[in-house]
């Protein structure tokens, strides 16, 4: 089972990659409280898509797991799993846990 901390580090790595393409005012702080999606988030929809793609890619490269983050289940949840780094980490952890139980 992959630890939450490793998953969060992967998300931070993807955030740093995406930050390099963003103007300073849109760049994200690599903290678990950072808001990724919602009214108080800095990312526009395009940057959020880029970040999700970067996270999926890094999960595959660094942890050798293939996940699809933005499926029907993710977008239909009452509380979006993309709200903060922490909620996204929890969501990815739950996806991987389910996969390992299959």
């Amino acid at each position, binding site marked *: 089972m992959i630890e939450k901390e490793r998953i969060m580090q992967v998300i931070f790595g993807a955030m740093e990659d995406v930050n390099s393409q963003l103007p300073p005012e849109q760049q994200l702080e690599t903290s678990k409280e950072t808001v990724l999606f919602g009214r108080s988030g800095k990312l526009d929809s*395009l940057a959020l898509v880029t970040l999700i*793609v970067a996270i*999926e*890619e890094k999960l*595959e*490269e660094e942890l050798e797991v*293939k996940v699809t983050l933005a499926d029907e289940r993710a977008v239909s949840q009452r509380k979006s799993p993309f709200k903060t780094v922490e909620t996204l980490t929890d969501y990815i952890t739950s996806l991987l846990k389910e996969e390992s139980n299959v």
Partner: protein
Amino acid sequence: MSKQHVMLITGTGKGIGKYLAEHYAGKGFKVIGCDIKPADYTLESYLHFCLDVSDETKVREMLGVIRKTYGQLDILINNAGIASMNHFLLTPLRTVKNVLNTNVAGTFLVCREASKVMQKNHYGRIVNFSTIAVPLKLEGEAIYVASKAAIVYLTQVLAKELGEFGITVNTIGPAPVKTDLIRSVPQEKIDNLIRRQAIHRFGEFRDISNVIDFFIRPESDFVTGQVIYLGGLS
């Protein structure tokens, strides 16, 4: 070319796909091809994957190899497709699912995974395949026409969604070309179809590469969401 462009072509086992692999490898592109069958030819600067374009796992694996090996993908030619020619009343559901899977889901899937690689370099050219059977609303090909009409609208929506990533998406609609795809179509039907074109002849492979050459030029960065039908149909 100042920099070698990396190109992925689907359906390179034979016919138009094989011709395009040869054409672009000959022009100095690094060509990656895929087909449900192994390639029965080799080319310098050509790498072949054996897969079904509607198999999500295999498509993701192929794009993963391209990303890790070349770090870029500049061009995608979504040529893989299957046809079904039969009266609507005699078309089995299995045929419907097969055609939609390969032509629509396959094109969607390869576009999605290829775009993920392209957007990293903020550059990409995607060319999808429709057919003149769409504007002709060709009878006897209901599900094939429906699948290729879907490609037109898929292209136009993707053009809008991918424009900000520096990726253009266009479609070519070839006229009948003498390949296995039309082998089972009666001659009379083909002759009738060609008579409905503005220019009354079969399409040639070069007609197709001519349009693709235009779509994939770096200078065509303001050309997206377009459909070019060959033979004078619209």
